[in-house]
């Protein structure tokens, strides 16, 4: 055996599951010739290893020849049908896709949250709904407000605003129409626009458009700088040529 490095149980189980899937595929191929299809119903593995607790996590080192007193780690994988998975898996909301890994929190905070079973933003929202005191549960100064801001930032990072077109309309007064996707998606935030260094009125806004009134008495130059704050985490600067 070569480099005997400590491994995390999570990584080991992940690999075991992947390897087992490959085994199922191999058996399926084999079954074509035997006219019967076999399925792996159960795999259990007893591993002799030494658990150690370092850097806030438990890791295991596989026992080597001559080493005594190893712990026996028993892992049993049973089979389940997809219907059973659906029946026993809780439904997640549409926004639950944000994993805690995507949220910009320090490793210590993430680890503290994981220890109390928080792996996703959805888990966090459930705790908040139950009025759980995060600070007391994790013995730290984590608060929902602080986390909520970081979560919003992470989500905005995944779905940033994209501008497809900018046009100028002239009815009573000149209006800049900015069109695109994921623009003003926060209904609680009023977008702010600055045109050539001067605050401009936002006439209407939505996820696909923002209309900005050109300040009275001003006209657009050949090159115009438009800065729009769609929400605290999305600020866009565009140059508009007329």
């Amino acid at each position, binding site marked *: 055996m*070569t480099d005997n490095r400590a491994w995390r149980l999570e*990584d080991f189980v992940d*690999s075991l599951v992947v390897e087992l899937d*490959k085994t199922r595929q191999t058996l399926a191929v084999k079954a074509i010739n035997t006219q019967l299809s076999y399925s792996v119903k159960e795999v259990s593995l007893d591993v002799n290893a030494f658990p150690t607790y370092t850097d806030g996590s438990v890791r295991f080192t596989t026992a080597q020849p001559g080493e005594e007193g190893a712990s026996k780690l028993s892992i049993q994988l049973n089979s389940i049908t997809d219907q059973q998975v659906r029946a026993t898996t809780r439904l997640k909301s549409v926004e639950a896709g944000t994993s805690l890994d995507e949220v910009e929190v320090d490793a210590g905070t993430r680890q503290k949250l994981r220890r109390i079973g928080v792996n996703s933003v959805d888990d966090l929202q459930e705790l908040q709904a139950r009025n759980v005191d995060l600070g007391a549960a994790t013995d730290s100064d984590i608060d929902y407000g602080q986390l909520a801001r970081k979560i919003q930032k992470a989500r905005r990072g995944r779905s940033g605003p994209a501008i497809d077109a900018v046009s100028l309309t002239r009815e009573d007064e000149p209006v800049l129409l900015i069109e695109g996707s994921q623009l003003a998606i926060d209904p609680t935030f009023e977008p702010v626009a600055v045109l050539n260094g001067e605050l401009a009125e936002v006439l209407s806004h939505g996820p696909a458009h923002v209309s900005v009134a050109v300040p009275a008495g001003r006209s657009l130059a050949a090159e115009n700088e438009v800065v729009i704050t769609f929400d605290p985490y999305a600020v866009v600067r565009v140059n508009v040529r007329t």
Partner: protein
Amino acid sequence: MDEAFRPLPELLPELLPLAEPISTEDGTIRTVITGCTVQTPVELDLTVTGGSVVIGGAPPIYHLETSETPVFHSLRLVVESSEAAETSPASSASGADPGGVAP
């Protein structure tokens, strides 16, 4: 992974004594293996690469008594044919050994 070990997807199917159906000479009776349970000591080679663990395994490699014996882990593998799973669902619930033959 050490060359003495093999990835589990290669090792596990080889541990299964799944054979072709056996028929009587006149072809009136056919016997098939509907499932089996294999329990064996194994030697493991776990290699950590980045965030993943590469699992290599092998049945006891040497059958020699040495002053320092290798570490034997234990592997149990249960497979069942889809035919058996459909006809005898009670076997899994009772924990009965699915190994054996059926006509």
